């Protein structure tokens, strides 16, 4: 399984998870785990997703999520879990 991490940072508002999870579902990505906090109105969410069989390819999905995030005033990034493992696990 190829795992991706979706990161969302920005001002909290209605519909963030709804909007992003709909795109993930349409791209055939299963959500494996989700963690979120809201501190001083700043919303931070990390989502672990299965990106093994992304419909339409990983790059276009990452781009779509980023664009939807931009439209909502959020910093959204999807990338493979490998970068986090490399930087934080020995």
């Amino acid at each position, binding site marked *: 399984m190829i795992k991706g*991490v979706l*990161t969302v*940072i920005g001002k909290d508002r209605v519909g963030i998870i709804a909007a992003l999870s709909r795109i993930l579902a349409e791209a055939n990505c299963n959500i494996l*785990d989700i*963690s979120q*906090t809201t501190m001083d109105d700043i919303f*931070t969410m*990390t989502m*672990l997703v299965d990106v093994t069989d992304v419909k339409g390819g*990983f*790059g276009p999905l*990452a781009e779509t999520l980023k664009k939807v995030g931009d439209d909502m005033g959020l*910093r959204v*990034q*999807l*990338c*493979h*879990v*490998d*970068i*986090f*493992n*490399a*930087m*934080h*696990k020995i």
Partner: protein
Amino acid sequence: MFISTDEIIQTVTMIQQEHLDIRTVTMGVNLLSCVRSDIDATCNAVYDKISSCASRLVEVCRQIEIELGIPIVNKRVSVTPVGLIAPEDPEGCVKLAVTLERAATAVGINFLGGFSALVHKGTTPSERALISSIPDALNATSKVCASVNVATTKAGINMDAVREMGFVIKRASELSASSGGSNCARLVVLCNAPEDNPFMAGAFHGVGEPDCVINVGVSGPGAVKCAIEHVRGENFTVLAETVKKTAFKITRAGQLVAELASSRLGVPAGIVDLSLAPTPAVGDSVARIIEEMGVGRCGAPGTTAALALLNDAVKKGGLMASSHVGGLSGAFIPVSEDEGMIDAVRRGSLCIEKLEAMTCVCSVGLDMIVVPGDTEAHTISAIIADEAAVGMVNSKTTAVRIIPAPGKVVGDTVEFGGLLGSGPVMSVRQYEGSDSSKAFVDRGGRIPAPMQSLKN
């Protein structure tokens, strides 16, 4: 989740807000197999070799960028020092440079290094032709980088080559007078040049290397500065530990990119270069790290000690993060490419002599220094000799990338654009007649290798 949210957010913040990136993925390509009986056939073989080895380099790097979410700023190629395959006439050497440019354009890279000669102990006819062709070769190209290794700890300093390079740099500058002598930004004179350096302008593919190899240069001054902002007022042990931890993380990202690029291209991974390479962007400066450490102005007393700590901690942190470390590995201090350095020169706190002292404790040398257009060739040669002496005696790499900007005087600024930035013209201690360094430079011959060379 296996990785904590804090760790994920830290990485994302380093990339999105602190300019963490992979500075370069550089493919080294051996050209020794391309020598033919005439120059046109050699050029064809060189073109075919580079365009076939590096055909997928840019595409693969772009894919890795997307998957890991980390920018790979430069995709580059370094080749066997062209002096080893060049003909004995300068026109033939320029033909080779133009071929390299054509190959670089075909594979979509932004710089190609290796129009180089290794002449620390002596110069062959081919290397002599190549060195004399450098001004024309740089002028006929925009992506080709040239370098000349004039000294090593083992061999001493080839002062004939040092003298020649003063004239070569002046000529290269004059041919690009309309852009402030910008061709000199692609020309570096080295001492103890590493064979696996992925960074330009000094990258070349050494003769001890395999046929093709992937070397990666990391970056991250912004991430280091942000990390040490959290330990303001703490002692040096805490400061060094903080830099080490950050350098470890940065280098692990570089190691991952090297592994991925290597396996997808089917090319062995060479080294990760543990460097802090600044860019002209605000928040991506080595000078600002030094200032964050507590030296109010980069160049003020304390700067060399601060840089020494930084350089050492970067190496210690990076070493365990990478299987094979190489290249230049350390902090870079290119003046025109570092927003804080530019500011320090403008404020008068940073001068060439202080930079020379700084080069004793960091990974490179006098880098991207713009000097007045009337700086004489022998003065440039003497500066090169000083810097080569620093490298030779300290068994480290040093380099001089100096730009005598035609018609410019101290106080002017030369715009190079992009990663090369903009360089304020710095003052040079140049004296007239018998007070000058001309008689020293004109002696010719070699400065003998120092005691440090006798390690056997």
